[in-house]
């Protein structure tokens, strides 16, 4: 059905279609609408699921872990401080090889207290073994959430997936949304190591130095396999529902001399900047990074690169910029912009490109040459 909806509503609609057996969540701005809407579906009977209103995010993830290993599909949503409060359980979910899906509505961290968009919250969970995808439209929030269950539950992956959407600038904006009858796109949940009361086993036992690393390697092997699984699932999704996605979304990149790399809504707005720059004769393109874990292989040879980081790793630099540098060997122009919801328009993005200084870093609004 075609309607208009907010990013948060789109995630809730996808969860309704995916029919998890258990949803455990704790509200936090700007994510709250997701779990409110899901709670509403459960109350009205639109979704036959157990909704557990826990007392904290740590408990939300713990409940998802228990339910997931118990043999049912699970979902939770959070933001910012809520995500950080889960941190220990986030590692556990990945180590336990549990295909939990979580929406994280990206939001800055206090102090100062700030409820607006930033990616530092999700990047702080970068090394946990979760897959991370960042979406740029309301439709993509729906589509990526649906696909997240399929990817996570694939036996070649069996890792949790975090679907990231920008706080307010996507979570609360209204765009068109096509919801689907998903049919058998999501097969019944099957966890090979689910609890079996006929065959009792221990979970999370002591694992010594002679074996622990094998489990870590197994996570990485699955992360590597996940690239193929993601491509397969996105391809099948395109065949069934007509919307195609990839590890990146490229716009006018084929003949581009300079490519803007950003995540989320900045990555969409950058396309407008690219059109403006092309009108001026600057051969610009946009590459919106969708998957951050596993990190895609990027072909940027022969191009200049402008990276917009809505995050920062203090004492080092923008997380995306140093990822691009490490992956491609290219020294990007690193722009730190949009922290805590700082207003950045397509005109600003075009200015970043016009004033680019490869190898340098600029904080938008702080350094005067931007």
């Amino acid at each position, binding site marked *: 059905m075609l309607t208009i909806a907010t990013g948060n509503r789109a995630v809730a609609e996808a969860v309704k279609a995916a029919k998890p057996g258990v949803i455990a969540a704790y509200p936090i701005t*700007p994510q709250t609408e997701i779990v409110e809407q899901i709670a509403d579906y459960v109350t009205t009977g639109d979704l036959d699921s157990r909704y557990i209103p826990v007392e904290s995010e740590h408990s939300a993830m713990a409940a998802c872990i228990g339910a997931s290993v118990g043999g049912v599909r699970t979902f939770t949503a959070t933001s910012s401080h809520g995500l950080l409060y889960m941190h220990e359980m986030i590692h556990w979910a990945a180590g336990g090889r549990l295909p939990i899906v979580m929406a994280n509505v990206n939001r800055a961290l206090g102090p100062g207290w700030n409820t607006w968009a930033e990616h530092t919250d999700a990047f702080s969970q970068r090394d946990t073994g979760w897959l991370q995808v960042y979406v740029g439209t309301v439709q993509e929030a729906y589509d990526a959430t649906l696909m997240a269950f399929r990817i996570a539950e694939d036996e070649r992956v069996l890792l949790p997936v975090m679907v990231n959407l920008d706080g307010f600038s*996507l979570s*609360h*904006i*209204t*765009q068109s949304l096509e919801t689907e009858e998903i049919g058998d796109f999501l097969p019944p949940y099957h966890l090979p190591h689910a609890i079996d009361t006929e065959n009792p086993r221990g979970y999370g036992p002591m694992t010594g130095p002679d074996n622990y690393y094998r489990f870590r390697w197994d996570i990485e092997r699955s992360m590597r396999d996940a690239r193929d699984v993601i491509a397969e699932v996105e391809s099948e999704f395109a065949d069934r529902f007509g919307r195609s996605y990839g590890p990146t979304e490229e716009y006018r990149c084929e003949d581009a001399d300079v490519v803007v790399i950003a995540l989320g809504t900045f990555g969409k707005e950058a*396309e*407008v900047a690219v059109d403006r720059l092309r009108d001026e004769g600057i051969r610009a393109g946009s590459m919106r990074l969708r998957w951050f874990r596993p990190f895609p292989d990027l072909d940027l040879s022969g191009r200049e690169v402008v990276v917009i980081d809505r995050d920062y790793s203090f004492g080092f630099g923008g997380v995306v910029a140093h990822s691009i540098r490490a992956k491609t060997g290219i020294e990007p122009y690193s722009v730190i912009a949009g922290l805590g919801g700082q207003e950045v328009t397509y005109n600003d993005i075009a200015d970043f490109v016009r004033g680019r200084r490869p190898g340098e870093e600029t904080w938008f609004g702080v350094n005067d040459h931007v």
Partner: protein
Amino acid sequence: MYEVRIHSRGGQGGVTAAKLLALAAFRDGKHATACPFYGAERRGAPVVSFVRIDDEPIKVYSQIHEPDLVIVLDASIMDVVDVLEGLKDGGTVLLNSAHPVDGCRGTCYHVDLTGIALAQNLVVAGSPILNTPVLGALAKMGVITLPSALQAIREMFDDERNVKAAVAAYEELKV
């Protein structure tokens, strides 16, 4: 792309007005986005929300700095906020007011949305509902069609008084 900025006070329904306008434009077959700007505001504080309408998919998420249309749901805001800031040359203003307002610029429309809401007894928590009647005024101005305006209202609210108020605003709008 047609860009609309809505000024209201927290609790007056400006965010819902933006969603209704986007939905009506969408029912007209256009692409539309509604973007509330959430600040640290609370009831009574001046707030803004934005609507973009276009024939092509909309990729802009930032705030609207040069609107084609400014809607002011509470004219008293004009004492504290420069509602005309950035209004495009030849732009349009819609004021909730029974009378023309001094200091308006561009093509200025006015309609007494508060009076219309009160006449229909459309009051929630002591405040008249302005976001459904305003759609009627916008239909008269040609921003959306009247059938789509009424359809959008019916999709979001199950109370025909909202539709009657929108029709009244359609009929009473003045330049």
